[in-house]
Every structure is written in structure tokens, then in C-alpha cells.
């Protein structure tokens, strides 16, 4: 008999874990609440630092899940803990007896309109990082009309206690630098400004990206958080910040302002977490059993976590986390269901 593993959330973490667990000889059931697999990756155009296509990346992830049973437009309705496993009823009426559950519920993008002073949804030429990716994908957005002066605001809904989100979203700095260069490619004679508090370009090749943005694209980095945005009579934007390096207030007129909306804990993921009585930390993300040595284990036996469900992560972080979770789940099931071992070995020989 095969062990069932239920994976909640069909984003990159869910996809990667599905393919790994399937290869390890488990019967994987993947559910996704939206109509398509892929999560935020499905909405992105190119990925930092190298600019590879998000479409291609998603395609290769999808390429490894043949045989995985997945249901889209499907949510968890109820979960009951049995002696060794979980009895899960799905919104599509199907009941799953899961020997292990993996939460890959990901993140929500911060609702930029909550930073009222930036005027997203009020001033016509204020957009978000997600809007810009959509523009790169389908090439049109009425708000982007050959802009000559473009601004990027880092830390929108990150490192902001007023907005109720203290944590850093980890990916916005690199995304801003990437998108700034892409806009420069699209509009070569535009002036591009990035307003940052700290540039957190920690990953491999990220610093090169920053250097290139300065040296090759002439992008101007200004250390100061944008304090206020307003609309001029001609429809352009007036942006206020302090240039903290010069210790002086600064203003600029811009044709387009891009808000780097940060990561927030997934609301629907939290709903499933509540069904499982999964503890969350102050930042709203799920707690793990031990942060360092087993960051994929939840405090409950048989419940595992991967990806942004346990805090902001880059895509490579997320995929690595998913693989680690697969191994953790394999160890767990091997201990709890030793009788299934023989079958698993057969499957593994097939691969």
C-alpha cells in the first residue's frame, strides 16, 4: 500500500514537493484553491538575478508532476486527526486519508492601497511590482504611457509597523533592481530612481545586478523612504522623501511610480492552518518546530511546511525548502509506516 501525502497549495513549493514525494514512492494529492497551478510565479515575467523566464521556470516545475493527482479550485473543508493520519474533506467533495500533510500555502502580496499616502488606486500613475510584471507579460497597461521619469519605492508593506508588517520581505530589493533595469531596457531615455531604506542584495549575483543597474543603466539609488505621493495638475506625480545621505528633504516629479508590495502571510493558508490548530508567530507566518535543524516540521506530527508559509523566501529558497520537506516527510512516514518500506523501494528502483 502507498502512503497518501496531501499538499495544500500549488505554487512552486507545492509543485516541487509533489514531484519529489512522488519519486519517493508516495501517492501525492495536490490541491490549489485558484483555477491554475503556479502561484505567484504564474503571474511573473522574468526572475532575478539572471532574468530567466518565469514561464519556462514554471513549465519545468510542472514537467515533473505527471502522475500527481491535483485539483484546482479546491480548498480544504475539514480535517480530522485520526490515530496515525488525517481525514481531510475537500471542497470538491472528495475525502482524502492523508498520512502526511504538507502546507505550501505561500504568501499574499501586500495590498498597496493600505499605504494610503502612496495613493495606489487613487493616483492614476501609481502601480505595483505585480502590475509591472503583468505589463511585461502582456505588453500593455494604460497607466504606462512612455514614461520619462520612473520611480521605484522599496519596502511597501515591509519593515513598516504602521502597516502592521515589521518584517523584511527579502525579495523586493532584488525585484526592484531587476524591474528598474527592465524599464530602462523598455524606455532607454527614461530616468529611473529607486527609493530604498537599506539595499538588501544578499544573494549570489545580486550585488552584480546592483552594480550593473548603476554602471550600465544609470539608475539612481536614493536612500530615503518615500513619505508622500501626490498628483500634479498635469497628472504627473510629486514624490517626497528625504535624501538621508544628504540629510535634506527631496521632491521629484515622476510619470510612473512602482510600489514594491511586500509579502504577507497567506490569508487562505491561515484558514487551513486554523483547521489544523497550527500556531503562528507574531509576524503571522506559521511557526516551525525548530527553526534551524528542521525548519519544515510543524509542531504537529505528520504536518509539514515549506516555502513562504513560514516566512518570506526567494524562489530558490522555496524550492530547496520543498525538497527538504519531502525528505522530512519521507523519514516521518518510514518511521510511522515501516510496512510501506518494501513498496517504496520498488518505486524508487523504477526511477
Amino acid at each position, binding site marked *: 500500500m502507498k502512503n497518501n501525502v496531501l499538499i495544500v497549495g500549488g505554487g512552486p513549493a507545492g509543485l516541487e514537493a509533489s514531484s519529489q514525494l512522488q519519486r519517493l514512492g508516495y501517492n501525492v494529492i495536490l490541491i490549489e484553491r485558484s483555477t491554475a497551478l503556479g502561484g505567484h510565479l504564474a503571474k511573473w515575467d522574468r526572475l532575478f538575478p539572471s532574468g530567466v523566464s518565469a514561464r519556462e521556470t514554471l513549465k519545468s516545475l510542472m514537467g515533473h508532476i505527471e502522475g500527481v493527482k491535483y485539483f484546482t479550485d479546491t480548498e480544504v473543508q475539514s480535517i480530522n486527526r485520526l490515530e496515525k493520519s488525517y481525514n481531510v474533506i475537500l471542497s470538491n467533495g472528495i475525502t482524502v486519508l492523508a498520512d502526511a500533510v504538507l502546507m505550501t500555502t505561500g504568501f499574499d502580496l501586500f495590498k498597496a*492601497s493600505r499605504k*494610503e*499616502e502612496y*495613493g*495606489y*488606486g*487613487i*493616483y*492614476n500613475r501609481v502601480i505595483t511590482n505585480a502590475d509591472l510584471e503583468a505589463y511585461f507579460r502582456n505588453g500593455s497597461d494604460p497607466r504606462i504611457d512612455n514614461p520619462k521619469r520612473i520611480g521605484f519605492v522599496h519596502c511597501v508593506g515591509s519593515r513598516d509597523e504602521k502597516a502592521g508588517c515589521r518584517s523584511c520581505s527579502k525579495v523586493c530589493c532584488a525585484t526592484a533592481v531587476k524591474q528598474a533595469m527592465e524599464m530602462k531596457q523598455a524606455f532607454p531615455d527614461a530616468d529611473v530612481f529607486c527609493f530604498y531604506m537599506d539595499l538588501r542584495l544578499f544573494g549570489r549575483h545580486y550585488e552584480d545586478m546592483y552594480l550593473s543597474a548603476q554602471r550600465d543603466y544609470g539608475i539612481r539609488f536614493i536612500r530615503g523612504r518615500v513619505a*508622500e505621493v*501626490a*498628483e*500634479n*495638475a498635469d497628472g504627473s506625480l*510629486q514624490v517626497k522623501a528625504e535624501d538621508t545621505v544628504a540629510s535634506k528633504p527631496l521632491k521629484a516629479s515622476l510619470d510612473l511610480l512602482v510600489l514594491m508590495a511586500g509579502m504577507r502571510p497567506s490569508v487562505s493558508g491561515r484558514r487551513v492552518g486554523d483547521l489544523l490548530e497550527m500556531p503562528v508567530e507574531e509576524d503571522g507566518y506559521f511557526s516551525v518546530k525548530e527553526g534551524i535543524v528542521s525548519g519544515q516540521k510543524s509542531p504537529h506530527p505528520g504536518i509539514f511546511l515549506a516555502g513562504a508559509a513560514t516566512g518570506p523566501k526567494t524562489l530558490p529558497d522555496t524550492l530547496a525548502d520543498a525538497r527538504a520537506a519531502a525528505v522530512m516527510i519521507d523519514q516521518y512516514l518510514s518511521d510511522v509506516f515501516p510496512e510501506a518500506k518494501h513498496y517504496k523501494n520498488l518505486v524508487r528502483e523504477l526511477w
Partner: protein
Amino acid sequence: MIYEGKQKIWADYQKEIPDDHYFYVRSCIRQSFFPASEATFLDITRNRLGKDIFETEHHTTCGGIAYHSDTIPQETVMTIIARQFALMAKNGYENYVCSCITSFGLYCETMETWREFPELEAKIRENLWKTCKLDFAKPKYLIHASDLIYKYRNLIAKQAVHKLVNVHTGQPLKVVEHIGCHYSKMFPSKGVGGAEYPYVLVGMIEAWGGEIVDYPERRHCCGFGFRQYFIKGNRGYSLSNTHKKFESMEPFHPDFIITNCPGCPYFMDRWQYVIAESTGKTYGQDGHGIPVLTYEEVAGLVMGYDPWDLGLQTHQVGVEPLLDKMGIEYDPEKKYQGKGGKDIGRPEPCACLK
């Protein structure tokens, strides 16, 4: 500008404003420079709308201006405030409405500080009894007088004699709003519409037929700055901040400015005069300034009060072009007359500002 976006935010900041029975507290600056505005507020609410707005001669300044000029300790201003609250309770009221924005902000801050530091509240309670033999009390509802006119805006519209519409073109008048800094910048939830897009004045203008124009420096302070005005050597600060606002609003050609803070209309009116007389620059049509009105004055005009009963003659920027646009009849001869037509002369004309 996407109007629906603002509506979403306004929906998030709806504060509860009781319909009736208020203890009314005046503003030092409004009384000194716009006494008719407070008289109009009381006449509209009491006589036109039949509300119970109680005033006692025993209330005083809240001490806010002295406090924000750093001349009296926090404990002093808090005890004066406690005294005002106690008078409210003593007279059987629990709804407190104040005419001053500095007071309003200070009341909010004081109550918040008391909530956070109960030992301080206890100390103030003790001070109050020691000094005034009054029992400590807190208002159930604390609102600014502009909140109340906002609340009644549609009742006022029903009695409207004039609309905020240019009778010659049929177009709504373009209005710029200026919210006093201490209204909601410290406590966004205490203001109608919040801190970034306050609705308290916008709501009035919309209800009375005008059109609000947003401009980049809308949120910027008028520049009063307390000590920055009282000391002559500092007035450049005050002047320059108003100048910054007018330079920013100029391209939008507003017909007038509506304010809810006692100081702002004085400064935005008088600094236009100073800019005109010292640099020759004016911001209204052909040499005129842009009239800066209190919300009581605007409500009064809409309800058909005589402009000179509203005290519009005490503005340095002439309001006649606005009255003409609104089709309001007025007698230029009566503008500067005292009670019963008494001749008390008239101001000297300005060299530059019309």
C-alpha cells in the same frame, strides 16, 4: 485621480458623531479673528437645526497654544483640559464639541496618554480636585465642530439658498480644502476620512454643490508653527510654508479655500497679503487673492446669511469675486459698517492686493 479609491478610504474612517446635545467650547484664535464664525455655528445648529448646544461662560482656553509654544508643562495643560471636561459633566453633558483644532488634537493626545499611563490620569484627577474642587470626568464623545457641520451637511443642503456653483457658467466652484494638522495627523481614526484624505470638509463641499480639487501640497501645514509665528524673527518660516502651498495650488485655479482650523484661515489669508505687498505676487484672478473661508462661513453663505453678518469683511483677501460667482447679493456700502449702520470708517486700501 480615481474618485472610487478615495471613497474606499473614506469608508474605513467613519467616526461616530452623536446627533444632538453637546457641550460647546470656543477657540482662542477663532474668537479673536473670526467671532462671527462661532456665532454662525451656534445660530445654525441651535436656531436653524434645533439642536441643543450648551455653552458656559466658565470655560477657558485649553492652554494648547501656550503648551505648543512650550511655555507650560504637560501636566498643566492636562489639568486645564480636565477642568473643561469636568465643566461638561457638571452641566450634565457627555458629548464634547470644540471649535479649535489644536484643542481637539490635544484632547485626543491627552486621553490617549491617560489611557496608556493610568498613573498620570490619577495625578491629573488629584490636581483637578486640589485646584478646582471639581470631579474628574471624560467625554463619551469628543468631536470637532467641523465634524458636526459635516454630520448636518445634508440638513444644511436642504435649507440651502445658494449652491457652491458659478451662477454664470453653471459649473461647480473649484474648492481647495485645508485641514488643520492636529485634526487627524496624530490619530487618523479620530478624523472623518482619516489623515491622508480627510473627508470632513470634502463632504460639506460635495453636499453643497462644489467640486474639491486636490493639489500636491494639500496636506502641508499652513506654517503657523506657534513660536514660529509669535516671534517676529521666525515669521519667515510661517510665511514660506503658506507660500509653498499657494505655489502648489496655483495651477488648479481654486475659487476659494475652506478650512476647519482657526489659525489656518488667518494665516493663509494674511500671508497672501504679505506675499502680494512684498513681492507683487497674487494667486486669484486679476490681482485678487484666493478667499480663505472657515467652514462656518461657507455654511452661512450656502444658507443665505448676509456676508457681512458672517464677518467676511474681516478677511484681508476680498471675497466679492466669490460672492459674484455664487450670485450672492451684498451691499458694498454696508461692508464696514458697525451695528445698526454705524460708521466706523474702513480699512486703508492695499498697495497691491485687490
